């Protein structure tokens, strides 16, 4: 148990220290902020626009994290030799593979949480804008306050991360990633929209099902091809899954205004669990039959 926990946390920690992770996270945050900001100006419907943009950012960025995370970490372990040292301990290859994949999943959960909380921050910004407009008796211009709130969630972590690095020698990328999550959380709790959060969660859960499949596929291919062909192979798998995802998630979720019956979420997990299991078994097989050197 302790051994598995050490591998899971070390892997998640590694990915949070990875500049690519921060770049994908910031790009996804920017997408979730900028897309609704433009739409507010034209159409209004603040909450729905913010939610749709957040889900889109989470989907695209989430796939990138699920694809790149295992490639990065398994490639580094196998090519730099750290896997040798880990496997010389009392750790089976199967648990090494599964725990590393779980570490990647933990990083994905952190990524998803950051995007979800930022989405709620954007909605809070729109609420503030609405309140100001009501007080003044003028027309609500929602995009300004929501844009300001959410851009702060992107810029502030970078600034504070740089300050922590300069004066306290904290690791910049790790600090910035954790501060994104912290600030997004702080932004989201102002006038917490429980109704919207309740709508978001099933959609996010639904999107996580194919994301897990992509993650498992990427992990298995990374072990087999040491991260070289893995990206391309996993991308093909992801591309094959996306239409299913479209049917399951976006069409249904958005058509129903973000309301999803629990059965949909469960059905998605049931539908994807054989795919996830197949890729995990393939990864376990690959790591057990090959020489680690």
């Amino acid at each position: 148990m302790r051994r598995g926990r050490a591998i899971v946390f070390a892997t998640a920690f590694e990915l949070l220290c990875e500049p690519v992770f921060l770049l994908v996270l910031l790009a996804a945050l920017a997408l979730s902020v900028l897309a609704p900001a433009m739409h507010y100006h034209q159409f209004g419907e603040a909450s729905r626009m913010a939610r749709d943009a957040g889900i889109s950012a989470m989907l695209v960025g989430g796939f990138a994290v699920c694809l790149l995370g295992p490639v990065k970490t398994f490639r580094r372990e196998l090519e730099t030799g750290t896997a040798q040292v880990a496997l010389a301990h009392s750790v089976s290859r199967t648990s090494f593979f599964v725990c590393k994949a779980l570490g990647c999943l933990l990083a994905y959960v952190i990524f998803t949480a950051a995007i979800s909380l930022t989405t709620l921050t954007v909605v809070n910004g729109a609420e503030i804008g609405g309140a100001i407009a009501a007080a003044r008796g003028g027309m609500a211009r929602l995009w300004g306050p929501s844009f300001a709130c959410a851009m702060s969630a992107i810029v502030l972590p970078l600034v504070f991360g740089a300050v922590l690095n300069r004066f306290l020698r904290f690791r910049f990328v790790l600090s910035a990633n954790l501060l994104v999550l912290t600030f997004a959380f702080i932004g989201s709790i102002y006038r917490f929209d429980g109704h919207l959060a309740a709508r978001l969660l099933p959609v996010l859960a639904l999107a996580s099902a194919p994301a897990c499949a992509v993650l498992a596929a990427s992990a298995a291919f990374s072990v087999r091809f040491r991260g070289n062909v893995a990206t391309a192979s996993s991308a093909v798998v992801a591309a094959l899954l996306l239409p299913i995802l479209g049917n399951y998630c976006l069409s249904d979720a958005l058509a129903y205004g973000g309301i999803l019956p629990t059965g949909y979420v469960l059905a998605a997990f049931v539908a994807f669990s054989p795919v996830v299991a197949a890729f995990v078994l393939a990864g376990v097989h690959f790591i057990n039959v090959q020489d680690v050197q």
Partner: protein
Amino acid sequence: MSDENVILLSGVRKTFRDFWLRPTVDAVQGLDLAVRRGEVFGLLGPNGSGKSTTIKMILGLIDPTAGKVEMFGMSPKSLAARARLGYLPELSYLHPFLTARETLMYYAGLCGLDRKESRKRTGQLLAMVKLEDVADRSVGGFSKGMARRVALASALVGRPELLILDEPTSGLDPVSTKEVKTLVKALAKNGMTILMTSHLLADAEDVCDRVIILNHGKAVAEGDVATLGESLEEFFLAKVGNADEFVLADFLS
């Protein structure tokens, strides 16, 4: 030293194959080897003689093509056997994003130590390898010698019964090399079994009780250091080749 064998290899062969399963190289050819409890055993040989391959087979990282490998009387893939082992690889394989302290805490976790014990052991080992001042710096920025010391501390964090050291003094300055040799002697005195490889024959001569010399994947000599002759270096050169045969004339003319 007892007669109990901690490591036993009998008739071990390893042939590497390419993608199409065609044999590419016979790295180890019919090796028999026994390391007894409490001894410091040296695995010597020139580059490409099969030392690292042998060690990886003992660790269960690669499977032998033929023959049998046992560690503590068990398969090297047995978790119970590997729980009693510490390993220092030829190159200091460390996670560059972790600090020295986090690296030792990580390996303490892999050894199954609880948090309190891990902290205590980490502090002791950082003091031992003189890295307390830089304990909270990422190891990615360490010099080769500092990284080597972190790797050595990592190998010892679980208080192993068997320590496998692949070129332990590689990259270390003379003072650190002397410290490592002193450490190896002290660990052996406390009853730890040590298997080490080295290109530096003087190092092996200083710390090893017995050695085996490999050449082209075969054992060419084995015995107590004290009985091999006056100089291990002369004995080694006589067994694996003569440096005088090195052809300089054509290049220099």
